């Protein structure tokens, strides 16, 4: 079911540049102990900007998890974690990453040893347990940035608590780095962070064009920079370049799926070890996954950021992110995306590795069907453990789903 060579879309120029940036970044991180820089491991939804201000290199076990998954190393590493006593039902990012630390394995020869750990629980409770494992193993300071869950509201008491923690975070970093926090630099980093998020949103928005110049699979790839280096000029420059390339593609009519007929929305993290297969399978139906709820999360709370007071507004922006809100508010976000990207159907990844993202999907699916009247399908997997994936079952489901979409749309 692979796409014929002539129909394959042109590669993105920016992909090469991104690989260069990521290589440089990892070299920088891996040589930090020689260059005297500090390394902090941080969760993907964590406030990275203060680290940038302090010249600390942020390293992301979750980004590493994606790398492990995409290199098909997840299954073996997860099995190693299971041999250490970790249940097979646990998050496969966490299992694979813990195995890398404890057993010295994984791509790029493992991550550089952390000097500190920054865990923000706005994405799940799993990260708390995962970072506790690392804190015991590496015996380094752990800062927990505790963001109360916003089921229906973000009350003042929560705002006050999170704001106080920003000060505690700064004090933690000042102690760990032995230098004061530079407020002026913080303003600049905040400005760059917001600019990076705006550009990332603009890149994603380019897929609102019919046909779309990019797919969610491209977004999964280009996401790495807004996650890892938010708050730097490198990110702003890169996404500016990528946005220019998207606009060129629209002008030159270069479409991600040459005969795009159906537009789909993806929910949840990617199935990292089957990106190409999924991409090809949908493309064979002339279906383009034009957007996703996952990569949008890194620009989804821009509305809470105060351009003139980035630092203070981080409290709200980092607490009210997509995964830290009730499922009815998540559904509202999805409704808006369905309209914006003119979507014909929704593909929900029921991800055994991510309970907060997956529980509630059935209710959201019903809300979408009731409100928007579009078909939804579910694909089940552990996002990073290929042993859990049934390709034939998934293919059958996709075929049936696409049949439904075709009948509906004609």
């Amino acid at each position, binding site marked *: 079911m692979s796409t014929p060579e002539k129909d394959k879309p042109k590669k993105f120029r920016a992909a090469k540049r991104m690989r260069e940036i990521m290589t440089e970044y990892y070299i920088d991180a891996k040589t930090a102990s020689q260059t005297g820089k500090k390394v902090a491991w941080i969760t993907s939804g964590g406030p990275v900007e203060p680290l940038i201000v302090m010249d600390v290199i942020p390293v992301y076990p979750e980004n590493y998890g994606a790398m492990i998954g995409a290199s098909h190393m997840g299954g073996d590493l997860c099995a190693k974690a299971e041999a250490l006593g970790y249940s097979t039902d646990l998050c496969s990012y966490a299992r694979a990453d813990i195995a890398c630390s404890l057993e010295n394995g994984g791509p790029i020869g493992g991550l550089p040893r952390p000097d500190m750990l920054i865990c923000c629980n706005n994405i799940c*409770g799993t990260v708390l*347990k995962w970072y506790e494992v690392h804190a015991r193993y590496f015996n380094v300071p752990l800062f927990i940035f505790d963001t*109360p*869950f916003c*089921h229906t509201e973000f009350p003042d*008491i929560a705002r006050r608590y999170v704001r106080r923690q920003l000060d505690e975070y700064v004090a933690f970093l000042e102690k760990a780095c032995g230098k004061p926090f530079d407020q002026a630099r913080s303003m600049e980093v905040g400005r760059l962070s917001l600019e990076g998020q705006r550009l990332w949103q603009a890149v994603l928005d380019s897929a609102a064009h019919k046909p779309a110049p990019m797919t969610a699979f491209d977004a999964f790839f280009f996401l790495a920079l807004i996650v890892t280096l938010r708050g730097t000029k490198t990110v702003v420059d890169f996404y500016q370049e990528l946005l220019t390339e998207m606009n060129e593609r629209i002008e030159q009519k270069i479409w991600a799926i040459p005969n795009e007929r159906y537009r789909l929305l993806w929910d949840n993290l990617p199935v990292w070890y089957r990106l190409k297969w999924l991409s090809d399978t949908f493309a064979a139906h002339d279906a383009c996954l034009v957007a996703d709820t996952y990569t949008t999360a890194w620009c989804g709370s821009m509305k809470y950021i105060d351009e003139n007071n980035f630092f203070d507004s981080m409290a709200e922006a980092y607490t009210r992110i997509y995964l830290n809100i009730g499922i009815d508010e998540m559904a509202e976000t999805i409704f808006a995306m369905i309209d914006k990207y003119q979507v014909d159907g929704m593909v929900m990844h029921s991800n055994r590795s991510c*309970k907060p993202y997956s529980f509630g999907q*059935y*209710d959201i699916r019903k809300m979408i069907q009731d409100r928007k009247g579009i078909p939804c399908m579910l694909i089940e997997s552990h996002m990073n453990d290929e042993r859990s994936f049934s390709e034939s079952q998934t293919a059958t489901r996709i075929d049936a789903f696409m049949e439904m979409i075709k009948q509906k749309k004609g």
Partner: protein
Amino acid sequence: MNSADILRNVADNPHDYARSLKDHGKSIIGYFCSYTPEEIILAAGLHPLRLFGAKDDTGTADAHLQAYCCSLVRGALSDVLSGRLSYLAGAVFPHTCDSIQRLSDIWRLNTTFRFFADVVLPVKLTTESSRLYLEDVLRKFRGDLEEGFSITITDDDLRSSIRTYNSIRSSLKTLYSLHSRRGLPGAGDLNAFVRGSMVLDRVEAANRLSDLVETLTGSTGSPSSGKKVILAGSVCEHPDIYRLIERAGADVVWDDMCTGSRYFEGLIDEHGDPLVALAQRYHDRVICPAKHSSVRSRGDNLVNLAREHGARGVIFLQLKFCDPHSFDYPYLKETLDKAGIPSMLLEIEAQLPPEGQLLTRFETFTHML
């Protein structure tokens, strides 16, 4: 019925008991976690009822939850959707794990009770700011109840409730000690008493437990001849487990469970501002793995419990798909190994494995001790 029978009876038949309470005009608030500030519910003149979730007939939850959800959450949702909890006036969801968090959303959107509240507690319990936030959260919950039921909860109401809970908790602890030292009451009964205390009218529960303490303190008994073990995990509502452990030649002398010591350890200061005292208790109590105190507190606590009670081994009892407990297991086991304390892991779903199989596993473990 004597006090023990009453507690056992309500633990076995919580729904019947709750319905009868409702018939007598009580408003009942359901909850799922030992971090629920029950004291405020009681102070409001309402009845807090711990819900454990159905063990079978959970099909109604399938339309809302994937197969990889734990039996506690699945059972609770199926109970409410199939009308088995129609006696409730409402429910409260303290922030616990990712699964309970989403259960709260699904519950809120699919039920129509008079009252609903999320009590979004802090996860980290190590800082002054988290203690202050916890106080704020409890204050907010007090306000939510006042508004929801058009009542006023006075400080005196809270103080009275706190005294009742202190009485319940200290009696439960005394009963645990009596079991550990003299073998009475039996371990299975203790489990029923804890669960019964989460169901029975709290003032009556306090009285019944005091009565049991008085009766049993005067009785003569000798500790079980079984090898002493600690039970560690989340919830246990299977009295059969204690019976089987006993048959295998061991005796559960203490535990680190939500349906056990984590519920009763830590009394509330009866002086000063009651809400501040309450927040202090929830901030300082022995944590469950969904909360953070220090990275080693749970392991240290388990080793201390084993040493304090002369236990020779630990039995981990975990629900399948319970992330917080599963994440801690390798570290807890390693900590116990280093302290020379053997352990075994029993992962269960709603139903226990066949009795013969379970007995063999317990026997094998007991022989090792």
